[in-house]
């Protein structure tokens, strides 16, 4: 099973290498190390978000409110910074994580305590959180000139030749890797996705784990809120509108099964990178950026078809045995 999972990620990695190869035939500088680093940095936020979404999808749930959470938290942080430029950036990041945590916990509580399907809950909070952003800001924007230089500069500062944003992404990837492969919580997340009933008998509190999972995705949404606003230096109600589906797309391309239980940190990261490479490559090889949507749509469909092929070979064997007996 583990060897099999690795197998799939290797295929995705190979697809990305081929993609970069194809692009560099038309624009050789694309495959430069410096440029690839740039692509990684550009994709950092999507990678972080995809990891947060991954843990939710693994438990057979879905979080549609991540982009709205990002928008709301980003606005909170930007307005705080505009009003009190003295607040140090690390404290702002902690605030962003906490605000995101609260928004995620609301989703989690509704799913856990009231047993409402997560797609319904987060469909509701998707509109509520974005609406709340408008109420909070009164529809006004926070522009670059209102933000402090530290606020904008923090993630752009280079550390060992790599921007802080990339380091944050690397840190988050490492944390998720440890969480998913080295902790009991990570194992229970997989267990719930594979078989919720069996998980209950194995002593896993399914509802509470789902609550924790939504708290994680909420914190990730909050963190991305700060990163997004300080990267694109504008906070408005329209920030990341519709981005929730991009996050899910990255997960799907990364081989995370929407039916839960299947997927890995490496897959989510590669899925996000795949989308990031396409959006970075289109302008340099002179294809209109309007093609991007259709291309990523086709990539999603292709990825689902290929993933479904490999998933299907598992679980059916038991059924066949039953058929043979009767």
């Amino acid at each position, binding site marked *: 099973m583990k060897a099999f999972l690795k197998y799939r990620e290797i295929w995705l990695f190979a697809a990305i290498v081929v993609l970069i190869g194809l692009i560099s035939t038309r624009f050789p500088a694309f495959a430069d190390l410096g440029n690839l680093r740039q692509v990684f940095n550009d994709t950092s936020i999507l990678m972080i978000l995809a990891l947060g979404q991954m843990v939710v999808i693994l438990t057979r749930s879905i979080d*549609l409110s991540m982009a709205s959470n990002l928008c709301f938290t980003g606005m909170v942080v930007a307005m705080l910074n505009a009003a009190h430029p003295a607040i140090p950036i690390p404290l702002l990041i902690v605030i962003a994580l906490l605000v995101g945590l609260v928004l995620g916990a609301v989703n989690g509580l509704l799913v856990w305590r009231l047993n409402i399907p997560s*797609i319904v809950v987060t469909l509701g909070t998707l509109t*509520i959180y*974005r609406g709340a952003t408008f109420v909070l800001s009164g529809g006004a924007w926070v522009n670059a000139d209102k933000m402090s230089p530290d606020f904008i500069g923090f993630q752009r500062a280079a550390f060992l030749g790599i921007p802080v944003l990339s380091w944050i992404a690397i840190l988050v990837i490492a944390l998720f890797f440890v969480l998913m492969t080295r902790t009991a919580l990570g194992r229970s997340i997989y267990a719930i996705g594979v078989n919720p009933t069996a998980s209950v008998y194995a002593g896993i509190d399914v509802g509470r784990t789902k609550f924790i999972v939504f708290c994680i995705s909420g914190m990730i949404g909050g963190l991305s809120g700060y990163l997004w606003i300080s990267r694109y230096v504008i906070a408005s109600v329209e920030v990341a509108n519709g981005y929730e589906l991009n996050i899910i797309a990255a997960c*799907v391309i990364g081989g995370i099964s929407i039916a839960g239980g299947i997927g890995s940190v490496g897959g989510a990261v590669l899925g996000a990178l795949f989308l990031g490479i396409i959006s970075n490559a289109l302008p340099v090889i002179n294809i209109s950026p309007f093609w991007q949507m259709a291309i990523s749509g086709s990539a999603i469909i292709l990825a689902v078809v290929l993933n479904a092929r490999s998933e299907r070979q598992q679980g059916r064997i038991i059924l066949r045995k039953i058929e043979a007996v009767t």
Partner: protein
Amino acid sequence: MTDIPAPRHIPDRLDKPLRSAIFSWEALLVVVAVAIFAINSFASPYFLDPYSLSDLTFNFTEKGLIAFAMALLIISGEIDLSVAAIIALASTMMGMAVQAGAGTPVLVLIGIVIGLGCGAFNGLLVTRLGLPSIVVTIGTMSLFRGIAFIVLGDQAYKGYPESFAFFGQGYVWWVVSFELVLFLIAAVVYWFLLHRTSFGRRVFAIGNNPIAAQFSGVRVGRTKFILFCLTGLMSGIASVLITSRLGSTRPSIAQGYELEVITMVVLGGVSILGGAGSILGVVLAAFIMGLVTFGLGLLNVPGIVMSIFIGLLLIIVIALPIVWRRLRGGR
């Protein structure tokens, strides 16, 4: 040999006591609708005017048309997130046809056929290849709208013929718009289809237990395929209406409609897990959403704030019966 006992009489349907009708989902929706209606007419003097009430209907007719087909699809355990993208693609194709000099009947035909084709494409991917519909339609959503973006870029199609404007702007009688009439006809048709035909029973059977349905001789794949086609068809019709009402096509047309349509369906009491729901509920939910957005609009509440109310309404209306049951059950 002993006598074989006479087969027990199994009633076609169970008696429904009045109490269950009073505490039904639809009754709750009626109460909510009446309450919102009353609040609105107190809050704004312009609300109880036949012309503004007529304007109100435009808020939900187009989405409501799709919601009927979506309700059937969700009852069968599938979902279609690409409906808004189908609207965009169909509208773009109609725009291209206008540039080529097509007349009104051809335009309508193109809109409907493109919608049907997109729905069939979704249906084939889901039923033939056995893929999860939520992921497939996220993909086709990007694909369909992506094609609209490739064709149009940042441009827009205009210059639709004058006779084409009737579908989205015309009135059949006094203040009764063509869109409203179409909405009501579709409501009756879908009510009949879901609650009075064997096709409808099959949809419920599939939603409750697809494997049992399969073994009972229901062609699950084919039924689901038809439902995807229907959803595409309704999106195509909605595309004709919206394009006609706006008189222009941009690739971002109807952005975000898919979530509003699904909200409408869920608010209408259709279980997102499949197997339960009614068309009456969806009709009521459509009215409620129209009332809320229009009422708040009269009070100059911006659209984005209205969405808070819609979101809260969705969660509260779903949570209310659960909390209620728990309080009474003493758990």
